[in-house]
């Protein structure tokens, strides 16, 4: 009945690899002159790595108990709309001609970055007191 809490190594590695693959793909598409077929291929390469990340993350979250899942769900409920808000703001600024170097596509890493403070905010909703007695 004992639940073994899985480490975050799997999803962290998968996330880093997926992120790096995406950055590399973007860099190649911006700086190389390739035939159309190759450009499509390079653009799609990060896809399987992100699928790997999703499965690694789900596997990790399934090792959580119900309370830990609640905290993760709460944190995602903060991080996801926050990233959308950021995307909407950047899009509006772009339409207003204020932001030219940033696009909505540059916002997605912030979802991962915002997840950490969101996790902290979510866990503060359930204060822990004495560790034991």
């Amino acid at each position, binding site marked *: 009945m004992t639940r073994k809490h899985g480490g975050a190594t799997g999803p962290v590695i998968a996330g880093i690899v997926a992120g790096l693959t995406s950055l590399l793909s973007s860099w190649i598409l911006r700086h190389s002159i390739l035939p159309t077929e190759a450009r499509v291929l390079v653009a799609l390469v990060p896809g399987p790595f992100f699928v790997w990340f999703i499965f690694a993350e789900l596997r990790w979250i399934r090792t959580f108990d*119900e309370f830990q899942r609640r905290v993760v769900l709460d944190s995602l409920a903060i991080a996801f709309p926050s990233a959308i808000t950021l995307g909407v703001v950047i899009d509006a600024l772009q339409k207003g001609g204020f932001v030219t170097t940033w696009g909505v596509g540059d916002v997605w890493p912030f979802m991962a970055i915002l997840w950490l403070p969101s996790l902290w905010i979510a866990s503060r909703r359930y204060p*822990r007191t004495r560790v*034991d007695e």
Partner: protein
Amino acid sequence: MKNRLRVLRAERDWTQADLATRLGVARQTINVIENGHYDPSLSLAFDIAKLFGMPVEAIFERDAGG
């Protein structure tokens, strides 16, 4: 929701970690349940009741205002 988890655990001289291991949850989960900051699912509440050999209502009690 109020509960008698801390008392029942102390009677058996179990730590939060001991109880967590027996229930297959994290120690933090026992901590927040004991302190009334998190209400367990029905499934976990029944697991707790089974572990202590008591009915659920003998361990968990709805707050007066709830």
